[in-house]
């Protein structure tokens, strides 16, 4: 029987050192709501668990140039009570709060949601739509990367050995901006997204969309950032024609699989529906 050691370093440097030294045999533990499940199911057999919740930077939320820097291990319950983030990025907060139940919310983090690499992770499309940038600490120091560049496939990320996601920067919002996230699940909670759609947009005084980002989840091996989706919205007032274009762009971008959670045809169709519905909610929020 192999032993499993548990470490809970108080600094990032220490954590990175431990992680790099383990050469792939260690796993970072944030909330553990993915990790512990995988451990118990025998899907992973690490020799070391490195708990990162004792590292202050990872659990802090700070205002920065009108935007917010959110630690990678901040729990859903904590972010859900942050007035600044709720006002600036309600779509991100609602996506994160959709994860699991009250119990899971007390543990689950956005860092874990992202680094677990699930195509269906709920917070990720909203973070991509928000154009969030993550700070990554590793053996060679720090670097920055866009959220959409982290996940490379189911269960896979672009993080190198020894790298840890430190925080996410959600930029300052121009006036008349709004975001929203919707997912489809057959139940009302405790389920994995069959399709997820995150949209962030900015309107001018006349209500014309000047900027937009559209992201989809659960319809391809990774989350998708839809340029065509943004193009469908920009320059429009989100009228019927724009909505149809967005719907078509969403459907065209999907590369889903048929599995126990949904068929290809179903996922494609619902991706268009959710994109439209999320855009309308984001629009309402932008209009205040």
């Amino acid at each position, binding site marked *: *029987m192999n032993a499993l050691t548990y470490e809970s370093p108080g600094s990032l440097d220490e954590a990175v050192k431990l992680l790099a030294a383990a050469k792939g045999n260690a796993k970072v533990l944030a909330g553990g709501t993915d990790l512990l499940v995988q451990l118990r199911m025998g899907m992973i057999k690490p020799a070391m668990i490195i708990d990162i919740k004792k590292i202050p930077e990872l659990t802090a939320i700070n205002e920065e140039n009108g935007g917010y820097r959110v630690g990678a291990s901040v729990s859903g319950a904590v972010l859900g009570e942050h007035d600044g983030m709720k006002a600036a990025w309600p779509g991100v907060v609602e996506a994160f709060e959709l994860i699991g139940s009250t119990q899971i919310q007390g543990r689950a983090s956005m860092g874990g949601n992202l680094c677990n690499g699930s195509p269906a992770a709920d917070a990720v499309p909203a973070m991509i739509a928000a154009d969030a940038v993550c700070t990554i600490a590793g053996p060679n120091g720090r670097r920055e990367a866009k959220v959409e560049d982290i996940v490379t496939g189911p269960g896979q990320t672009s993080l190198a050995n020894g790298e840890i996601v430190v925080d996410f920067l959600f930029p300052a919002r121009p006036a008349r901006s709004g975001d929203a996230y919707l997912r*489809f699940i*057959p*139940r*009302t*909670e*405790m*389920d*994995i997204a069959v399709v997820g759609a995150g949209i962030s947009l900015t309107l001018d005084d006349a209500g014309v969309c000047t900027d937009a980002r559209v992201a989809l989840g659960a319809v391809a091996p990774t989350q998708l950032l839809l340029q065509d989706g943004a193009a469908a919205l920009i320059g429009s007032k989100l009228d019927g024609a724009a909505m149809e274009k967005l719907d078509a762009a969403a459907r065209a971008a999907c590369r889903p699989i048929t599995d*126990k*959670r*949904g*068929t290809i*045809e*179903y996922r494609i*169709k*619902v991706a268009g*529906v959710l994109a439209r519905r999320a855009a309308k909610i984001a629009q309402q929020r932008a209009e205040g």
Partner: protein
Amino acid sequence: MTVESKKYKWVGTSPVRPDGNDKVTGRAKFGADLMLPGMLTGKVLRSPHAHANIKSIDTSKAEALPGVKAVITSADVAELESEWVPAGELQLNFRDLAHNIMANGKALYDGHAVAAVAATSAAIADAALDLIKVDYEVLPHVIDVEEAMEADAPVLHADMFTDGVTPKPTKASNIFKEVDIAVGDVEAGFAKADLVVERSFKTAPVHQAYLEPHAAVASFSEDGQAELWCCTQGHFVVRAYCAKLLGMDIADLRVTASEIGGGFGGKTTVYLEPVALMLSRKAGKPVRAVMTRDEVFRASGPTSGAASWVKVGVTNDGTIVAGEAILKYQAGAFAGSPIQPGCMCAFAPYDIENVKVKGYDVVTNRSKVAAYRAPGAPISEHAVESVIDEIAKKLGMDPIELREKNAAREGTNAAYGPKFGVIGFADTLAAAKAHPHYSAPLGPNQGRGVASGFWFNIGGSSSATVNVNEDGTLALATGSPDIGGSRASMAIMAAETLGIEVTDVRPIVADTASLGYTFLTGGSRVTFATGMAVIEASKKIALELRERAAKTWDISVDAVIWEDGLAKPAGANAGDFEPLTLADLAAKANQTGGPISSAASLNAEGAGPGFGTHICDVEVDPETGAVKVLRYTAVQDCGQAIHKAYVEGQIQGGAAQGIGWALNEEYIYDEKGRLDNASFLDYRIPVASDLPMIDTVIVEVANPTHPYGVRGVGEVPIIPPMATVANAIDSAIGIRLTELPMSPPRVLAALDNGS
């Protein structure tokens, strides 16, 4: 006996449940909660194949692993004769049971047990399982019931020649038996019909999804006696099955039922219990075995998936003149689906002159089905109730009025044989029609559905003992595991019978060595049958108390009455002595003859059939196919509610499970026949936020054979929901869905195809 006019002190109220506190605090001891000194961990190796010959099993490496104390395979399980015995609402074959707890020569489903180990830790047991080498020859498999019936389907059992067909076939098949029920002449009936509707339906296999996984702790002594602790709906039945499987005298096995986290029929058979006993016998130490959720889904019995065809003919005034059905039920790997009750129930709610039902019991490569609330009835009645709804819509008739016109009533000859006694079907229909829900307005994309359901309910053997404690409180023991609030109901019936405070009665579930045989908790029998034993034992106590008072006063027992919890002198002696309380008499028990106790054992007959009618409003999202249940009302004739809140809970729980069956629950298999959704994440039972508060209406048409008028309650409420929801969806979108579950992709596809 007229029961309605009685005024009760406790019956029909909702006192605090005696098991509630410990369940809320976590103190209650469930199947996995018993620890014994030196206890080993038992684990089971399961087939990863849906159908495979087991060419060899090499356990030598596992046996050699330090910490492993016993390994068993089918070589350790005695071969039993093929012998059918009644098992509650179903039948059971001991040879099949032996082969189900440990595969013998052939693995018949993904999850079929092939070996088991007992080791000093869970990690060692897991490692030992990895060291067992099983050489499989994978065979073609079949899971779908209709595919399994085809002539060229892979055959599971080379010795299965369909029963119920003359001449008996000479070629083995997967059809274990055919069932036929017929009254009148359906052809003549259909010839008289102005409208005939026929439809085919499919329903998915669904699991009872009890919260507590199967668990057992077994301890064998050197003298050949054993104790078993397990979560079960019937510890006397577990004792009988295990004694048979292990070749023991019944007296040598004592079984204690732990607290139970749900059963719904699924814990009426054995899986781990005999395996834990065999491991303990071999290891000479206590063994605890607990299933994971994955094992529960793969290896314990859900109910059948099925294919049904139903044809109903009516005249223009709404009289049903003929009903015909063909029902094909999956039994799983071994014969014995609930096809018989399925056939019997199909048209039971209605007074129809001409009925013909044909049923098939079909084996397929999935876990053997177990009982699930009203086994068989929800499947056939879903089909019939859907067709009845379609007929009502085609006739332009209110669906409740159509049912009222054809409802079975007292004296109706049921299509399955007997004449109905006092029943309350029409009363449930009237209550549903009068309920404000039935006439509430609906919005866009919303629809309302109605459907009814029938179940027999059963009686059977039960025992109870009552001990009067030294202070006058009562210890009440029965042999019925409490899955639905029976302890509360038993305390109420004892307190009512004796006219004492309900809190003075402490009800428990006693082990198999402590009182008379009690058949399992199933068939909605416990409040009825065990309740009768409790009432009888309580009456004996009342008589004994009168005798003790008579002795105390030195008068004849005939001159003492027991009234409102007091012994009172009566007749010529009325007023001569101060009445004596139970506490007074208990305190003097030693002077009047010793401890006061009683026991009653009986075989209860005359169970009262149950009927329910449900109303459901849904809203369908036309773009995603998602169905939201907006409002749900369940009306049921319960005879007499003993503990009212528990009765409501039974009705709500049954409706919730039925809604899950209707909308999202299903077993999903991959192309190799392996179960792909063996977890609560992907086997979607409704979560609390999926459902509205389920409104209940309790109709009380007393069952004349029970002292308080009880009918069974627990099973009827799972029967109507599937058709109720389907009928509501049809009202909302104008499309009849005939395949369960009516999951969002299926609803959306139907919307897109317009059918």
